[in-house]
Each structure stands twice: as structure tokens, then as C-alpha cells.
């Protein structure tokens, strides 16, 4: 039963994790809008989510363990592969951050993060009403 509950929210949990990760990558782009030679980066959310659901995220590059007492080394790579953004208007200092694009994507991703939160909250409410039943009516 617990695994059923777990499966129910798994999709949105993965989506939420990737949204948070993408939000952080976009924040880094905005922070480095004046850094020479900084290249703006982003993730392909669609393929990252499919990889995460199939259980083959980038973090699977951990060390193999031959004993149950070994610590499973986790790689420092994030949950999705980072890609470089295509440049619209190249600047002389080698920076590829376009503030308008980054701000738009940042706002968009924040809304999508909140949407994922709402979905999870709705699923909690659904499960809760299934557990409690409609005893009051």
C-alpha cells in the first residue's frame, strides 16, 4: 500500500526535483549576466524527466559497491545534463547570457514549479479523502 502511495506521487516528485534544479541553473545564468566568457546553460526538461522516470538520471554515475557496508558514492553531476544555450546576440566579452530570455524562462519555470506543487498537494488531498472516507456525511 505504501508503495502505491509512493508510486502515485512519484511522477510529480521527479518533475518537482527537476524544476528546482532548472530554477537553480537559470538563477546561475542571471547571476553571471556580467561575467566575461560565461556561457548560459539550461536543461531539456522533457528528456530529463523521461530519463528520471526511467530511472537513468545522470546521478547514476555513482561508484559500484561490492559490499553492503560500502558507501555508495554519489556523483556531483546534477540530475540532468546541462546544455549550452544558442546565442541570439553575441557579445564582445564572450558572455552568452541574454537577460530577457533568462528572466522569461525563470518566471515560467517558477510558475511550473508551483503547478507541480499544486498537483502534489491535490494528490495528497485525494489520498487523504480515500483514507478517511466520507464518514461525516
Amino acid at each position, binding site marked *: 500500500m505504501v508503495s502505491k502511495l509512493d508510486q502515485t506521487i512519484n511522477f510529480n516528485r521527479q518533475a518537482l526535483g527537476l524544476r528546482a*534544479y532548472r530554477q537553480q541553473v537559470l538563477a546561475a545564468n542571471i547571476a553571471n549576466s556580467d*561575467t566575461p566568457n560565461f556561457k548560459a546553460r539550461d536543461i531539456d526538461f522533457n528528456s530529463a524527466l523521461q530519463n528520471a522516470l526511467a530511472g537513468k538520471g545522470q546521478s547514476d554515475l555513482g561508484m559500484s559497491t561490492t559490499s553492503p557496508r560500502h558507501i555508495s558514492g554519489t556523483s556531483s553531476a546534477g540530475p540532468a545534463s546541462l546544455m549550452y544555450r544558442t546565442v541570439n546576440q553575441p557579445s564582445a566579452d564572450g558572455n552568452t547570457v541574454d537577460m530577457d530570455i533568462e528572466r522569461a524562462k525563470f518566471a515560467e519555470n*517558477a510558475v511550473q514549479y508551483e503547478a507541480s506543487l499544486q498537483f502534489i498537494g491535490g494528490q495528497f488531498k485525494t489520498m487523504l479523502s480515500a483514507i478517511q472516507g466520507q464518514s461525516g456525511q
Partner: protein
Amino acid sequence: MSIFNMFHVAGSALTAQSVRLNAVASNMANADSITSADGTPYRAKQVVFEATPMGNESAQGVRVKQVVESAAPPRMVYDPKNPAANAEGYVSMPNVDVVEEMVNMISASRSYQSNADVMNTARTLLMRTLAMGQ
């Protein structure tokens, strides 16, 4: 956790941009300082930014790598009455370009605002996450 990293990233950018604003203020204030501590005219200072990893590889923050002094030649102004004038009557003035500094100031202030917005968004998202399922 990713959302907390956003605070570190945006915070490092706020610090870096305020250093840049400080440099602009210093340059503007000293636009007419014909002598500095070492007796030569004041030289315009510019900050150099560098991306630096905060927490993990994808969270690239900013830090001020170094503060460089502009190598532009001093502005020569003809003013024979000035005690600092040379034999031809010219005074070496600081190489501060006031127009450039104003542009620099507006750019730094806009970047500062953007990063403050990022912090606000991160805070909102965190608060919503804390209220998840309620």
C-alpha cells in the same frame, strides 16, 4: 538542495554587483582628484567578474576576481595657474570617463535588481514547498 543553492548564487551576484557599484562610486567621486596617495592622478578602477561554483557544478555564482586600474592615459587639461601644472602648463587629470561610469552604474544597478528578484522568487517557492499538502 537546489532551492537553497539559488540563495547562494543570487547572494554572490548581489555582493559582486555591489562591489562594482562601489568602484563606480569611487571613480565618480575621484573624477577630479589630481593627486592620490602616491602623488599621481587617481586612476579609474574596474572590477573583473569570474564564475565560481557554489555547492555543485551547475550552481555557478559570481565573485570579483580582481580590481584592475584603467591603463588609459591621464586627461591633460591646460591650466597654468594650477600648482600641479607641468612646465607647459598642463595638469594631469584622472582617466575617469564619467559617461562610461554612469552607464556602468545603471548596468550594475539593473543586475542587482534582477538578482534581488531571483531571491524573492526563491523565497516564495520555498515557502510554497513548506506548505505542501496543507
